[in-house]
């Protein structure tokens, strides 16, 4: 079973949920797909023992062969190629590595060279979690190829939890697109609600079943989220109360189930419930 933790808004508690859940369910694989800001590592304190650079291909122009015909410049949809005097310039950060320029060059003046985009790191942690993290290099713009490479590390024998990037665009979609279930993490504020709506629209469009976890829950304000979920038949899987101690543990990089082990049962229950929902769905299909 593959479960992705996501949210429209940043900072609602995706990593908190992903890490604490991974620590509550046996034999789990955790993939940190928030490759712009991978943060699970600060809670799991992994000893990375394996790393793989992720490359993508960008064009290199052989100026001796180039006749400045402009075909590649006109073809590139991303404006990653430009004509300067009689030379074609490449802007590697905005190149999407589609390979089109190399294919259409009539003079065979373009070859593709590797450019490092990011890195994957692996560790088994002291908590018996098989942990992979993707990391985008500073200054690079495209997270998607790093997330794709990370997902290739999926061990399908295990249950997998994926920590996604916030938002509803390409990197988040890439993380969740082939998951069995999505956990949408939100908080009881107007911001939390507004962004939850966007995230649930995305899940509806992708046709992936999902449920909600309310983080920093407070009795007098949870209705903000509950009303919306009620109306739209969305399950609320769990509420994690607002506590200053939880905030402190978070800040110090300590998963709160370590200090409050009774919460492991809560996360385990959520995981079992998700499995139940999916089994039922399989059965009805």
């Amino acid at each position, binding site marked *: 079973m593959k479960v992705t933790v996501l949210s*429209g*808004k*940043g*900072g*609602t508690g995706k*990593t908190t949920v992903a890490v604490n859940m991974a620590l509550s369910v046996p034999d789990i694989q955790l993939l940190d797909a928030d490759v*712009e*800001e991978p*943060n699970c590592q*600060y*809670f799991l304190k992994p000893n990375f023992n394996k790393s793989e650079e992720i490359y993508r291909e960008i064009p290199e122009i052989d100026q001796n062969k180039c006749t400045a015909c402009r075909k590649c410049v006109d*073809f590139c*949809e*991303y404006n990653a190629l430009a004509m300067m005097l009689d030379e074609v310039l490449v802007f590697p950060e905005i190149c*999407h*590595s*589609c*390979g*089109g320029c190399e*294919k*259409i060059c009539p003079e065979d003046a373009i070859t593709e060279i590797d450019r490092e985009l990011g890195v994957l790191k692996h560790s088994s942690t002291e908590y018996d979690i098989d942990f992979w993290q993707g990391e*985008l290099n*500073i*200054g*690079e*713009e*495209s*997270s998607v190829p790093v997330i794709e490479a990370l997902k290739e590390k999926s061990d399908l024998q295990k249950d997998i939890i994926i920590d996604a*990037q*916030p*938002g*509803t*665009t*390409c*990197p988040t*979609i890439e993380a969740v*697109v082939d998951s069995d279930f999505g956990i949408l993490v939100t908080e*009881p*504020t*107007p*911001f939390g609600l*507004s*962004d939850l709506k*966007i995230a649930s*629209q*995305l899940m509806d*469009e*992708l046709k992936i079943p999902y449920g909600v976890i309310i983080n920093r829950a407070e009795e007098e*304000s949870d209705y*903000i989220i509950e009303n919306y979920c009620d109306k739209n038949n969305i399950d609320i899987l769990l509420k994690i109360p607002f506590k*200053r101690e939880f*905030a*402190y543990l*978070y*800040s*110090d*990089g300590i998963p709160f189930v370590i200090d409050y082990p009774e919460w492991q049962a809560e996360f385990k229950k959520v995981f079992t419930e998700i499995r139940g929902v999916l089994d039922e769905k399989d059965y009805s299909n």
Partner: protein
Amino acid sequence: MKKITVISGKGGTGKTTLVSNLAYLAEDLVLADCDVDAPNLHLLLNPEVEETNIFKSNKLAIKDESKCIDCGICNEVCRFNAVSPVNYEIDPYKCEGCGVCVEMCPENALSLKLMETGEIYNSTTRFGPMVHANLKVGSDNSGKLVSEVREKAVEKGNKIDKDLLLIDGSPGIGCPVISSITGVDLVLFVTEPSRSGFSDLKRVAQVIEHFEIPALAVINKYDINKDISQEIVEYLKENEIELVGKISYSSLVVENLRNAELVVEQEKKSKVSQEIINIWKKIKTNIK
């Protein structure tokens, strides 16, 4: 006109809350919400939309079934796995609109179609004009929409001769963030004292350094973990980023947020409001 983008690396550190409270203190400025993935500034500033424009920038490959001979070349040449190997259907979430399949199709059965990325709004708030957007769910190319919002706000500000443009940015370090800082005079980091907040700050600060933009910083909820706050203070000093203030943790902030109110307006005398007022004073000396 001075242009400032507020970013954080990590999400949820308080960018939008700070931007809206600063807008109140600035009284007269131009605002832009460049967090088009999850825009929230409008929830606090209640803009009145005056003009809506559809923004189209991403392209998708579209197939004319009547011309397709199922040769499979499109599937072979697509680097994004957007063409199904079974029936050669195009997955709109995977297609990046590069046009390689269009170029290589021997039957001219494929073409690129310009799609709607989202809507851009020209609005007014009680503190001045605001440009914001709504990205179509699941859409590609938020970077281009961010650039468009930023450019429209600059245009507006120049036209009516404002002194300040305040831009609410998005979390992360990738394409939307880079689009939101292009051409600005100053970046304001909003960080929080947590292991992850600090490390995300360092990553985004490297991006800013790469673009050689001067930066200021605010530590929000600094008293949640004073040890890490101290580490951040030292880091900022070493990297010549001016700390313009620390904001203490206060339940007043979230209470006001829940009522869509501004804490500096409702609780002027509170400690947290005084801290924000002092931050605004320091920012002002930086943009003179």
